[in-house]
């Protein structure tokens, strides 16, 4: 918990939110203690005074200092806000979890009721309740709480439904846990975080609404005062001195914003979609050229379609930067299929995303050189709008990226054909008719049967394998020079996997595109690719033709190959395994594989082996090619 929250407040906006909310909290706690007496000092001789050095915001109709009154009112305002929010959230939890506890029949009735309640405008509901309960602080809190309950109930319901779909609820049911137990043990703890975040955001709007009710005279009653009431009192003198009447208003807005921004920042850090996303994320525009990197590999190859030299990807971690990708160099030539393998967490995806310029803040990317199709993608400091635009156009038309989850690149709300056609119009310069025909032709090319009809369907009408094909269709709409496919078949069963791999092969032959195929499974990659890069702990540790995989020289590569059972595996023996797991990104001493390597010795543990080129292969290992004497049985 601590880390994401700390991370949350590292962006400037979030830091501002933290400062604001702290000030509000401090004022609420200490305001009345420090200025309480001063704020109620009546001074008839100085009524409705304009702002002055003594009275920053002037005085009210009884000559009391307005600025201190605003400060003192913080406590009551915040307390009432929290009270109303608590009522709303409790009501929301009650009604939101009701359908689950009550079972399908009664559940439906509750859901129906929530649906109607949500449809009423909140403030109207609050006014309605406020009038029923009569004017007064606690009845206003109750009114606002009840008015915000439906939307919290809806939120809870959605969250609960999400948790119910999880297998751990199924596992609990199988082991005989009842509904109530599942609610307490599994559901509530898991919806807590998003609920708190949304309650914080909601508190901001409750604060505003409460000010509204007090302003209308339905909330706090004299002699007590909150910001809304102060606003009402000040309004009488708005023509006399406007600054005075604005002060409580400013307080309301700032405090409301403080709650809102705090909630949004938390939501952002915890990866929760809040009710209204402010879009705190910024895209990285370009990669950074790092002239300080001195290159020990060869100079950039000119005729490669992709030429990467000493690529790094880092993330800020406190004052430091951790580097999940620590200096990767490789070439891909036109029409060639190259595999990138390694366990998850080794930096394969980050490498691919960096090449495709798809990494977002706070990721940092730097390299000695990154050339795609003859164009340097790095920002060498002399970039202008034109070059950036040209670069984006190049990436948009000549590089395609295919992910494991097709829904990352298909829009669920639009017809598949339209999505392809739009690409053709925007990037390919085709007119409507041409784009439509090309889209249908491409859907056919990715072996989708009856492409005309399919083009008019939505992604959800496609099966998993078909969606994957449609995404590949999106990728090849514009005849790319390079296709990067990141675990494109990991979620699919073997037959569909085989079809997708065949398809990628065929497109490569027909359109002459190069392919970078990423997978954790060597047996998948070797079927399609002629050359294989093996990655471990953020570096390439071996490169070899895939025909030579069975004679790989790096212990890691050999263990990866041996770990996959095939139809000839000896079933009387335990499968070879790789004990332990890849290291977390961070400082590494010696060979990064040494903690798991059966050949590791003292030199391996103290000195990192260089990546040595030998003909068309590269390997980084002190004992490259030596037999693996003992393949240790795993005890993690």
């Amino acid at each position, binding site marked *: 918990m601590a880390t994401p929250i700390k991370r949350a407040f590292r962006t400037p906006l979030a830091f501002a939110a933290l400062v604001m909310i702290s000030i509000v909290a401090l004022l609420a706690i200490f305001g009345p203690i420090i200025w309480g007496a001063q704020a109620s000092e009546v001074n008839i001789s100085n009524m409705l005074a304009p702002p002055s050095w003594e009275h920053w915001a002037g005085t009210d109709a009884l000559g009391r200092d307005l600025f201190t009154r605003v400060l003192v009112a913080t406590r009551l305002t915040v307390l009432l806000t929290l009270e109303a929010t608590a009522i709303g959230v409790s009501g929301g939890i009650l009604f939101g979890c009701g359908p689950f506890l009550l079972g399908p029949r009664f559940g439906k009735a509750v859901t129906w009721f929530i649906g109607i309640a949500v449809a009423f405008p909140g403030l109207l509901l609050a006014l309605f309740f406020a009038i029923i309960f009569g004017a007064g602080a606690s009845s206003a809190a109750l009114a606002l709480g009840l008015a915000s309950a439906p939307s919290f109930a809806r939120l809870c319901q959605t969250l609960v439904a999400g948790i119910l779909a999880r297998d751990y609820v199924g596992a609990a049911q199988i082991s*005989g846990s009842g509904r109530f137990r599942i609610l307490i043990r599994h559901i509530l703890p898991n919806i807590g975080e998003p609920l708190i975040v949304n309650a914080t955001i909601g508190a901001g709007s409750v604060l505003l609404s409460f000010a509204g009710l007090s302003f209308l005279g339905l909330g706090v009653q004299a002699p007590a005062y909150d910001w809304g009431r102060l606003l009402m009192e000040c309004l009488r003198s708005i023509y006399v001195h406007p600054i005075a009447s604005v002060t409580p208003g400013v307080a309301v807005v700032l405090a409301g914003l403080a709650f809102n921004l705090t909630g949004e920042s938390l939501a952002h850090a915890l990866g929760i979609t809040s009710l209204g996303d402010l879009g705190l994320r910024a895209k990285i525009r370009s990669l950074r050229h790092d002239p300080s990197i001195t290159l020990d590999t060869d100079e950039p190859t000119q005729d490669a379609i992709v030429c990467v030299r000493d690529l790094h990807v880092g993330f800020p971690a406190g004052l430091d930067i951790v580097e999940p990708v620590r200096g990767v160099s490789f070439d891909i030539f036109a029409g060639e299929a190259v595999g990138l393998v390694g366990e998850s967490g080794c930096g394969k995806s980050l490498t691919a995303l960096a090449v495709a310029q798809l990494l977002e803040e706070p990721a940092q990317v730097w390299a000695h050189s990154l050339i795609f199709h003859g164009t340097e993608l790095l920002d060498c400091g002399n970039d202008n709008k034109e070059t950036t635009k040209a670069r984006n156009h190049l990436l948009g038309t000549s590089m395609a990226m295919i992910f494991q989850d097709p829904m990352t690149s298909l829009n669920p709300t639009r017809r598949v054909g339209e999505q392809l056609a739009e690409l053709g119009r925007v990037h390919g310069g085709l007119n409507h008719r041409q784009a439509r025909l090309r889209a249908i032709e491409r859907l056919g090319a990715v072996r989708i049967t009856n492409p005309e009809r399919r083009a008019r369907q939505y992604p959800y009408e496609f099966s998993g394998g078909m969606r994957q094909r449609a995404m590949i269709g999106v990728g090849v709409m514009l005849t790319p020079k390079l296709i990067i496919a990141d675990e494109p078949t990991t979620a699919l069963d073997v037959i569909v996997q085989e079809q997708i791999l065949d398809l990628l092969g065929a497109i490569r032959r027909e359109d002459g595109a190069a392919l970078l195929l990423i997978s954790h499974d060597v047996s998948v990659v070797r079927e399609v690719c002629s050359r294989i890069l093996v990655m471990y702990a953020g570096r390439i540790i071996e490169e070899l033709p895939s025909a030579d995989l069975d004679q790989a020289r790096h212990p890691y590569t050999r263990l990866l190959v041996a770990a996959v059972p*095939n139809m000839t595996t000896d079933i009387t023996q335990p499968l070879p395994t790789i004990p332990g797991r890849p290291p977390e990104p961070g400082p590494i001493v010696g060979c990064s594989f040494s903690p798991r390597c059966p050949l590791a010795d003292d030199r391996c543990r103290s000195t990192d082996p260089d990546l040595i080129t030998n003909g068309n292969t590269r390997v980084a290992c002190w004992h490259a090619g030596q037999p693996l004497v003992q393949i240790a049985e795993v*005890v993690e």
Partner: protein
Amino acid sequence: MSELTFHDVSVHFGTSRHRLIAVDHVNLTVGSAGILGLVGESGSGKSTLARAAVGLAPITTGTITLGGKPVPMKGKNRPLAMIFQDPSASLDPRMSVGDSIWEAGRGAHGGEDKQSTITHLLSLVHLDPKHAKSYPGQLSGGQRQRVAIARALAGKPQVIIADEITSSLDVSSQGAILNLVRELVDELALTMLFISHNLAVVRYVSTRFAVMYSGRIVEEGETSAIIDTPSHEYTRQLLAAIPGGSS
């Protein structure tokens, strides 16, 4: 006696107008103390059949029996346990490893000590007992799947249903989990239905398997016999599709 038998089991979803027949009159027997493999493409009904056995999917027709008696679908201390495909979805992220395991065994352990029960179960799956205090997020995929296996064992089940338990893992952890499955079934004399879409994986853990295709069992028999002379067209396709296979 812990022979699990599906008698003419069907599972239908949806309304009568849009009916989806996920499982179509399946007859299948998982022999006592051993592993029966079940292969088939995604969407062929493997998982639905598995979920029906543990009461997570509604059975439209047929019965499921264990040792001749109907499998209880309600109440504590059930004789069937299930291991799911993706351990990051099947473990509660807010519950420590130890608590997850202990909670699952509530019905089965009598007056046993919590600590020693958890330690015992973790050591069965070759995990350091210190992980009892860890949360799933702190473990690797392979370690998480070991926890899920320990949790399945906690209720002292007679039958375990393993649904694609290595599909979401790296190949490097897959081998270790397969070794563990074989070891546990031998040691604890468990009955297991082992579901996978990968024939090479099924071949490694089980001597018999069944092939499911669009809701039906289309082939069943000795692993080596089916591989040598597959009788159904789909089985032939499956054999041809194995990466690096013998095709």
